[in-house]
């Protein structure tokens, strides 16, 4: 198994930490993992993205140039990365922030109004984890348990009270994914 995920959005949208959460979960499951951010000058207040590789084999290069999954958190990221996804790959779009459509026909695409759903859960900060929930359900890349476990490691102790709402968000995402699969 080799999964290469690219998460892209604005700086400040939690793109990097969401990626780290995923990598951490992979590590907990004793997979080979690597995480790497883009670190161009564009980062300054502009777009931010990171690549996560989760694999059974040792990872040669952690650069994610042809993602199996792309998570899109703002419009410029869709413009920029749509073409790089492997044929048959997956794109998850936070449609609360991105009103644009994917043009390629050879991909699986899911639009998730993550901010709106997060608001419903009472905390807009968990939007990313809704999408992450979708991802793990659709791809089986890591288990829910591993992500929840990782939250404990990634969140500072004083934020551990947020773990339940984050877990809720993950589960909500998984549920959406299941509905989607059923629809297909």
């Amino acid at each position, binding site marked *: 198994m080799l999964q290469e995920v690219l998460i892209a959005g*604005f700086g400040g949208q939690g793109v990097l930490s969401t990626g780290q959460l995923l990598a951490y979960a992979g590590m907990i499951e004793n997979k080979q993992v690597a995480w790497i951010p883009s670190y161009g000058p564009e980062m300054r207040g502009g777009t931010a993205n990171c690549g996560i590789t989760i694999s059974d084999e040792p990872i040669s290069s952690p650069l994610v140039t042809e993602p199996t999954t792309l998570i899109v958190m*703002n*419009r*410029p990221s869709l*413009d920029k990365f749509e073409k790089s996804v492997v044929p048959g790959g997956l794109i998850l779009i936070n449609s609360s*922030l*991105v*009103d644009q459509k994917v043009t390629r026909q050879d991909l699986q695409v899911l639009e998730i109004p993550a901010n709106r759903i997060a608001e419903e859960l009472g905390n807009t900060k968990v939007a990313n984890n809704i999408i992450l929930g979708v991802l793990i359900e659709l791809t089986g890349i890591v288990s829910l348990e591993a992500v929840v476990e990782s939250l404990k490691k990634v969140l500072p102790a004083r934020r551990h009270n947020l773990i339940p709402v984050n877990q809720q968000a993950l589960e909500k995402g998984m549920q959406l994914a299941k509905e989607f699969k059923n629809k297909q």
Partner: protein
Amino acid sequence: MATVTFREERCKGCELCISVCPEKIIVLAEHYNAMGFHPATVVEMDKCKACAICARMCPDVVIEVVKEEKQD
């Protein structure tokens, strides 16, 4: 009559123009531009005094100000 034009696709929604307009007639639009920002726009153009204070403050040279001079 003054016309204040915003190159909307270049606006980064920083709101600096809004904060300096003496007439308080600039707001951020609801929609996103291609960069993903809410662009600034003038709501009541007729109140505009063509003072160009907004343009002078804009870090991204988004704004152009033109004044129709009375033709006597």
